[in-house]
């Protein structure tokens, strides 16, 4: 199996910078450009985090509305992407934690994960890989929300530890610890599966 490392598309800082300034001044197309450049990636991130199409669309919509409203408070326009990501990841974390709490309280019928990793597998993925992705999804549903998010950002989104730390608002050591928590749980599952 060939491992394909994910590369986060990096947009030129100057472009974000310029678009944010123009959008702040009421430019008709700059805000749309910001959505067009970041919206697809944010929607994909939300889908992976929330495992639910409609919730992912809701969160993407809400995040951009909030971002456009708060643009005047963004001190460094060149950091729009990281600022937006931070907003999205923190809101997703809040929603996942709330969902888990509801599930603990017995509201099982209110939400069904419909787009887990196995359902998001590419058509080229063989059945055994899909089965393993299903196991990953289940293992991640049992580790802490923070560990799950850190693992998804690290392996699916291709973020570095530094970027994960920045977006979760934690230290690098904490970000690394959270990723390792998920990895340990997965390692245990693989070990059990191979016995």
């Amino acid at each position, binding site marked *: 199996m*060939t491992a*394909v490392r994910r590369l986060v*598309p990096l947009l030129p800082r100057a472009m974000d910078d310029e678009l944010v300034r123009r959008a702040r001044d009421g430019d008709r197309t700059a*805000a749309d450009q910001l959505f067009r450049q970041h919206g*697809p990636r944010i929607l994909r991130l939300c889908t992976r985090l929330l495992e639910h199409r409609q919730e992912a669309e809701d969160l993407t919509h809400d995040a951009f509305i909030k971002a456009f409203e708060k643009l005047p408070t963004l001190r460094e326009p060149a950091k729009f992407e990281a600022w937006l990501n931070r907003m999205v990841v923190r809101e997703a974390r809040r929603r996942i934690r709330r969902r888990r709490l509801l599930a603990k309280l017995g509201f099982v019928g209110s939400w069904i994960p419909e787009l887990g990793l196995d359902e998001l597998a590419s058509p080229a*993925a063989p059945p055994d890989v899909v089965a393993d*992705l299903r196991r990953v999804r289940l293992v991640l549903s049992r580790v802490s929300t923070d560990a799950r998010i850190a693992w998804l950002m*690290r392996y699916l989104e291709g973020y570095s530890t530094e970027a994960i730390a920045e977006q979760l608002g934690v230290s690098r050591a904490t970000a690394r610890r959270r990723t390792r928590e998920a*990895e340990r749980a997965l390692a245990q599952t693989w070990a059990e*599966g191979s016995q």
Partner: protein
Amino acid sequence: MTERSEELASYVSTEVDQLGVERIARRIQRTMQAPRASRPWGVVAVGLAATVALGLLLQDRLPPHAKEPALKPLFVRTTPPALFGSVRTEELEDLHLNDGSTLVVSADTELQVNENTGRHVDLGLRRGEALFDIVPNGPRRWEIDAGPLRVRVLGTRFRVVRSVRRVEVHVERGRVQVVGDDVSTVLEAGQSYVHELQPPSTPEPSTPTPTPVTREPQGPSWRELAERGDLDQARRVLGPGGIVRRARRTRSANDLFLLADIARRAGTAEEALALLTQIVREHPADPRTPLAAFTRGRILSDQLGRRVEGAEAFDRAARAGLSPDLAAIARRRAFEGYRRAGQSARARDAAERYLDHHPEGEAAPAVRRWLEAP
């Protein structure tokens, strides 16, 4: 571990739902246009609307997958998935494997997994009866050791019964090779082979009429009662709390459907909902699951009055592979659910989805009128 995570992650699609992106663009546009004193974005909204049509979309590509990964052992499709291992059943069990094969293991049967690798599956039928429906032309060589007989699968569906008196092999589809101390024969579809153990006798291939396999008489179980439509009696046999207890223990989609029928018949909507939710969650590949998703929508909307959740369930059911007629009903009901719940934005999205998929649908004129209304 890290490498394995990277390998698996490389198989997760990077495709973006472009229709979803468009829907969000339209929602942002509508939100911005909505009157709100503190929102200075009316002009930006016009810009968004203007450029939606330009379709300046980011295109992501699937990663290349040059090499075929190593084949792994088989897993049973359960939640959580379980490594396909030995089973000893008290009741009939369906085992759906991740390669698409299915084993129906009868009650009071012991099936031992001697080997389960990417190339070879070797099972030992110690006692009882099992139906094997093996996906043909797979990468694995399947063999069933039934004591004096060994069955080599050449692709397909067959039944093996082992008791203290005899071993029987009945082929329903495809071919199997039966090998014993004094026999080696290939059975075609419709043929059976019976090996008598007491008294000893020479086994012979039978005519193409398979011997019917009967189970030990045990009195009607809840399952048998439910299958013959006597849902009230099935509920009595299960006893108080029996549906929930049974649902927790079973891996069988069929059992869950029967239990859901019993719960619906008894009018316990919450119980039926929980069972249908379990089906949707644990058996996404079952051909009956889209209908279960649709029924969830009906229970949520019609019996429990949870309109938004009902609408979401109908939305999911429509995407899950319903027949075109039912999918049209599901999309219409999703639209109505959101509309009645006062969720205008979601109702609008649902209405657009309905018209996209069913432009000539029965409800299309009314949906269009609603969309065009001020």
